[in-house]
């Protein structure tokens, strides 16, 4: 199934690898930070709810 990339295999494969890596890192970082902030916010909101309660 792998297409024959000929003598340029290294260039093509490394471009794809590097780009996908960067994209995955960006998406992963975005989602990780999103989840963390969301969890922290929920925790603080719950705590203040109880205290003011």
């Amino acid at each position: 199934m792998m297409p024959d990339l000929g003598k340029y295999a290294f260039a093509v494969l490394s471009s794809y690898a590097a780009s996908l890596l960067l994209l995955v890192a960006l998406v992963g970082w975005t989602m990780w930070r999103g989840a963390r902030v969301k969890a922290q916010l929920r925790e603080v909101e719950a705590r203040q709810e109880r205290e003011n309660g």
Partner: protein
Amino acid sequence: MSIWEYANPKRFMQTSAWVLPWVAVLALACLVAGLIWGFFFTPDDFRQGSTVKIIYLHVPSAMMAINAWVMMLVTSLIWLVRRHHVSALAAKAAAPIGLTFTVIALVTGAFWGQPMWGTWWAWDPRLTSFLILTLFYLGYIALWQAVENPDTAADLTAVLCLVGSVFALLSRYAVLFWNQGLHQGASLSLDKEENVADVFWLPLLVCIAGFVLLFVALVLMRTRTEIRARRLQALLARERLA
């Protein structure tokens, strides 16, 4: 109903929560389809061989790297004129995405240039302009990080974005003046004569759509995070006062 209603953070959170999954799924679908189509099912170019497959990453990321800056310019202007916080936070959210796209464009360009031009890097006008764009993104992000008060940071980065846009354009023409360059002309002009062949053009379109949608999804997601982070800060500040 006017578009400015979405500038209300609450309204934005509701709407974006509904839109985000759709955009994200569509982005993923377009990217997977476009890249697989481009990588496995397109022929090699008669001159460039298999390196032509790199354009499915290079061209969309380069386009979005510039568009992300334009979007930051627009949202910065909206923030300066109408003081909508969502707008400022969206600009902040877009900068790292734009930077990543710029780096992707530079890296894929280097991998393409190595066999084609015989060098990883040439001081070609477009390459140089992109390197300068990277510096602008870095400075913008660094300024956001350095200023503590969020409203001050939003104002200062917005001013930097405006002035930076003028200088980025100026640099573009200065660099063109300085060196005429190796790059081929626009591969996507509407002028059919200069266009790339249809076999490459269709998967490329899908990839461009994928990158646009990915950008929108990431901006929405990061803006939501920024809004939550602002609220978190406000709550913590209130706690300290009490």
